[in-house]
């Protein structure tokens, strides 16, 4: 994938396919430690322990349209190429937590890219999902939470055109300047 935010969109699809109603995504850069951490926590159906231990292998998938699963192996490979690793914790019936580390300054690290577009896409097709996105650079943070929006919108769905447009602009603004990650 050209951008880390495209991996995030792909991994969010896994959470949605697993029936998650809640998804928390965090992208955190620690400039002193020269480290970038991308994590996703969902409350979907989870995976059994033996499945988790094999899921980085592309031949492990529960899908039926294609015999190889690619999303997790690709994300794992992206982290490993940047002196990092992907850790997965999952419990059946509870949910799944994924966290990948990257060396922030690694020459092979893909840019975070258009995270606002990733968030708008997730919401456009999953308006009822409770999504929380946090982007951190050292001690600065931008937090976007669909629950706060829902209160303000009072019954208007998140996937209405004017709402999506606003979300895109709001996230773009919030993830620039002091919490910007390239």
């Amino acid at each position, binding site marked *: *994938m050209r951008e880390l935010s*495209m991996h995030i*969109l*792909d991994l969010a*699809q896994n959470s949605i*396919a697993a029936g998650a109603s809640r998804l928390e995504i965090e992208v955190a850069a620690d400039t002193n430690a020269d480290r970038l951490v991308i994590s996703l926590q969902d409350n979907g159906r989870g995976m059994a322990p033996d499945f988790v231990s094999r899921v980085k292998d592309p031949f492990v998938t529960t*899908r039926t*349209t*294609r015999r190889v699963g*690619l*999303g997790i192996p*690709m994300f794992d490979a992206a982290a490993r190429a940047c002196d990092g690793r992907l850790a997965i914790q999952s419990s059946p019936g509870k949910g799944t937590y994924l966290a990948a580390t990257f060396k922030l300054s690694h020459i092979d690290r893909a840019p975070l890219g*258009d995270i606002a*577009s*990733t968030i*708008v*896409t997730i919401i*456009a*097709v999953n308006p009822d999902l409770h999504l929380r996105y946090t982007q951190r650079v050292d001690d600065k943070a931008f937090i976007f939470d669909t629950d*706060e*929006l829902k209160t*303000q*919108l*009072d019954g*208007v*769905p998140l*996937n*209405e*055109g*004017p*709402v*999506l*447009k*606003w979300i895109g*602009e*709001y996230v773009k*603004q919030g993830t620039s300047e002091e919490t910007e990650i390239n």
Partner: protein
Amino acid sequence: MKTLEDLKKVREQALEQMKLREGKFSAKVVVAMGTCGIAAGAREVMAAILDELDKRGISDVAVTQTGCKGLCEQEPTVDIIKNGQSVTYGYVDADKARQIIAQHVVNGNVIGDWVVSAS
């Protein structure tokens, strides 16, 4: 500067559009969002579709997604369901997506050259 306060106005705009369509959708757009679709640019296609609908003030078109359909070679793919007919376009990019909205979704003209399957 965007703040959560703007949402009051955004909400009014959305309600206006919802009232106009009276619960009826004239077409459905389905973007394939499997890993291969995303890697091939499905997100940019989605962004172009949302932007084109917004620019044209169209609010009675539903936009949804599907997972991998096994058409990995032809991704990004987009289905248009209109007038009881479903058409799948392949190798879609942002520019093609805008033309599909203009010609097929708005005017009902299928763009035959880009169709990979129809039913």
